[in-house]
């Protein structure tokens, strides 16, 4: 997911103050370019309840910075959750309880998130939505879709 915030210096802020603002659709133009509608809109918002918008943007920037620095990872599930694995060969659904989640460096700089089950085996986070589902109904649907595609 692309960043929505970036760090920028502003003339009207103290010279040593670094602040974060919104990056509109990837363009670094907010607030400085007052002819921009968005810049104008944000200026109005900041005037009306600037501290609230500012707090939210600071909070968002914290999340984005942490994610960018590899300090924040989105988990596909929690330890203790039940997940449903589809088997396209025999058409069966197996239920697993998540026992452990591991983030490992694989090879050079690539990371892999492995989800270990209480029973046996594991899957990767990239398997979610493909062969592993958090909802049994979604697993059934995926299996049905696969069967219908196969029969065509």
């Amino acid at each position, binding site marked *: 997911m692309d960043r929505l915030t970036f760090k920028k210096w502003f003339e009207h802020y103290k010279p040593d103050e670094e602040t974060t603002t*919104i990056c509109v659709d990837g363009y670094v133009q907010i607030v400085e370019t007052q002819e921009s509608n968005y810049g104008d809109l*944000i200026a109005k918002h900041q005037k009306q309840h600037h501290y*609230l918008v500012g707090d939210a943007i600071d*909070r*968002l920037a914290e999340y984005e910075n942490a994610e960018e620095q*590899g*300090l*924040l990872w989105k988990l596909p599930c929690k330890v203790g959750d039940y997940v449903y694995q589809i088997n396209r060969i025999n058409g069966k659904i197996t239920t697993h309880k998540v026992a452990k*989640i*591991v983030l490992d460096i694989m090879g050079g700089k690539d990371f892999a998130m492995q989800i270990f089950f209480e029973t046996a085996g594991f899957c990767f986070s990239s398997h979610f939505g493909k062969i592993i589902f958090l909802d049994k109904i979604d697993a059934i649907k995926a299996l049905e879709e696969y069967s219908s595609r196969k029969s065509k």
Partner: protein
Amino acid sequence: MDRLTCKNIEDWNVLSDVSNFDKKGNVKETPQCNEICNDISYCGDCPIQKAINKLADYEDQEEQGLLLKLPFKVGTVLYNPVPYYYIGTVKMNEPFIFETKVVGFGIENMQLTIKAKNNGEIREFTVDKIGITFFLTKEEAEKVLAEMKGGKNG
């Protein structure tokens, strides 16, 4: 950390303090978007709304326990002072600092675990060992090493 976003009655992500309605559904007297913007029908295009939506996603995930916050990055070197160590089967009775490189993290039994590698040997320990047996700086580890040496000599 308290949430900054919530859903309003129309199921939009809004900043809690700028929401049209409080949690009980009463109208709040705070400045609203429509007081300063004529384009509220295009809120979906508003960069502030996009930022709020993204923040709401993070806050939702954190609330659901689906965000893993790490104390430091993979690749960080940790210093592990030990009172003795082995070379093969020979015990060396000399305090020493091992440098271990973090290669992964895990979540097990509601605890964050750290996986660190030292000379091909993988060690796994819980995050609460940081500052006790594993240190982020060599200086901290050296202090503990000095205490070990002092204890040994004294």
